[in-house]
């Protein structure tokens, strides 16, 4: 059993390891962006990663579904080790959902088509079944009435909720969130966070890069602080916010909490 204590939302964390990152290194040319990252995520665990911009937090989670290549180290996702094999990468991506800062919805497809595309073409579901699943998730993110609209006709918050529904339609085992609220207007952040909290209540394994510290306190089992391509500190949310260990963490927290 991992050490993590129950946050405000308590769902069980199992022994099963979902993601295992071992001494991960990555370079962009000569620039060493990730330096010896080690991270183990258990099934049902929710982790929030924060840190200043350029600290490598997005890069880290983008390595998990191989949107970024890495040069050294190994990543095992749900028992399968990432390699250069395209088939294996695609197989792992099917089980790992991702939500992006800029939503990245497909603008030429309707909301419903955005949600059914991958189930139909990747999971080979019949169209009707895929549409039923899509409507179920669109209802869960509270926008079933927008199903026939195009993404360009929706607000930012609605688009991000569609993006979450689109990922969920693939029935992923892990959800990665890459600054999901950073591109949103303030009044839309809450609707997206509410959706993510609801997902947490279902016991989804989640990795979130975010600066929403309220969200971190509510749902995270663990908060990880990264800087300069390294994991500086990780702790349970309460301890992390009340007793940060390193100077870098204290400085970072003072900057984002008191402005």
């Amino acid at each position, binding site marked *: 059993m991992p050490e993590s204590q129950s946050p405000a939302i308590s769902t069980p964390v199992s022994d099963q390891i979902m993601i295992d990152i071992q001494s991960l290194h990555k370079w962009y040319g000569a620039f060493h962006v990730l330096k010896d990252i080690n991270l183990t995520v258990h099934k049902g665990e929710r982790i929030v990663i924060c840190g200043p911009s350029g600290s490598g937090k997005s890069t880290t989670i983008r390595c998990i579904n191989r949107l970024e290549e890495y040069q050294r180290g190994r990543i095992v996702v749900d028992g399968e080790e990432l390699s250069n094999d395209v088939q294996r990468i695609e197989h792992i*991506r099917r089980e790992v959902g991702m939500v992006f800062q800029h939503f*990245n919805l497909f603008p030429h497809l309707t909301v419903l088509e955005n949600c059914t595309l991958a189930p139909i073409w*990747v999971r080979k579901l019949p169209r009707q079944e895929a549409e039923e699943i899509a409507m179920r998730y669109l209802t869960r993110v509270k926008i079933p009435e927008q199903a026939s609209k195009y993404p360009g006709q929706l607000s930012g918050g609605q688009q991000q909720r569609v993006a979450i529904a689109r*990922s969920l339609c693939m029935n992923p085992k892990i959800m990665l969130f890459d600054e999901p609220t950073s591109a949103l207007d303030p009044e839309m952040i809450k609707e997206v966070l509410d959706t993510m909290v609801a997902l947490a209540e279902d016991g989804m394994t989640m990795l979130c890069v975010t600066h929403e510290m309220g969200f971190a306190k509510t749902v995270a089992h663990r908060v990880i602080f990264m800087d300069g391509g390294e994991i500086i500190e990780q702790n349970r949310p309460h301890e992390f916010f009340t007793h940060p260990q390193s100077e870098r963490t204290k400085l970072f927290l003072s900057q984002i909490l008191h402005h």
Partner: protein
Amino acid sequence: MTQPHIPHPDLPPPANAVGAIGWLRRHLFSSPANIALTALALYLLYALLPPVLNWAFFDATWRGDSREACSGQGGACWIFIRTHFAQFMYGFYPEAQRWRVDMLVLLLIFGVAPLFIRTVPAKLKRRLGLGLLIAFPIFAFVLMRGGILGLAAVETSSWGGLLLTLVIAGVGMTGALPLGVLLALGRRSTMPTIQALCVTFIELWRGVPLITVLFMSSVMLPLFLPAGLNFDKLLRALIGVTLFQAAYMAEVVRGGLQAIPKGQLEAAAALGLGYWKSMGLIVLPQALKLVIPGIVNTFIALFKDTSLVLIIGLFDLMNIVHNATTNPAWLGFSTEGYVFAAAVYWLFCFGMSRYSRNLEKRLHTGHQR
């Protein structure tokens, strides 16, 4: 005490800002320079339009069967066009066999029309489209070429006129677009060999004038082929035109591919879509929509470039019209001939242009961020 806020009622816009008067003020008389340009345009219309209309319509000769009927009228002699019309359409295709071409044109019209009707189910459209792309060209070639099933053989060298123009343009367009898409994808490939091959192909073909390509295909190529092996001249021209235009198309499509944000590919990848599915379902539909103007531009250029086949001795619409104007019995009517040819070219090109605008409007899916 706070008073409840009462919004102002909506007022109608000022009378001179809307309607016909508003339009005229905004577009024709908004500034002194604009007024001067409006006046100049009106004067040019007054000076140029009446003579053109007189020549083409009011003073023109429409009835009659010989050139004598045209003498002394001063206007255009459309009898020249009428007596040569069949030749302009079919070239030297034997008169007794022209029903084959007519039948194919009818078949094509009935095959293509449902594709443009929105209520036809997508499944039927897909089948029809595939049939038109694969089965129709083979069937059309067999029927037009003949030589089997009791059909008299008609050598491709006697195909001509608008028929030949449409054959070259049609084959060129349907061949160049998919080939261009593949070349564009290849040029952006991460595999160095494929990339190098595509870049070489594109730069080689784009760097040579079409006229050279056609000339090479008809004069040079036979020198390299073993004696006795002889490709059809039309076939060589078709391959030349298709590959040439594919190189241009590749660069147009590449422009579209570059405009698609990286996030689209990442989102597709994150959902587990492989390369071809990402390209076919996500990137290409968006990229091709963006470059519709460029694609149609290339199509229009291709349509008009078909007239270059005259240098290898094929009689397309332009060349057959030219040929008719040198007919000793009908000397002196080249203006009518070229005006007619220009009108036919314009009709097709304008049609393509309108259709592309319509397509762009229909594919527009709301404002993008």
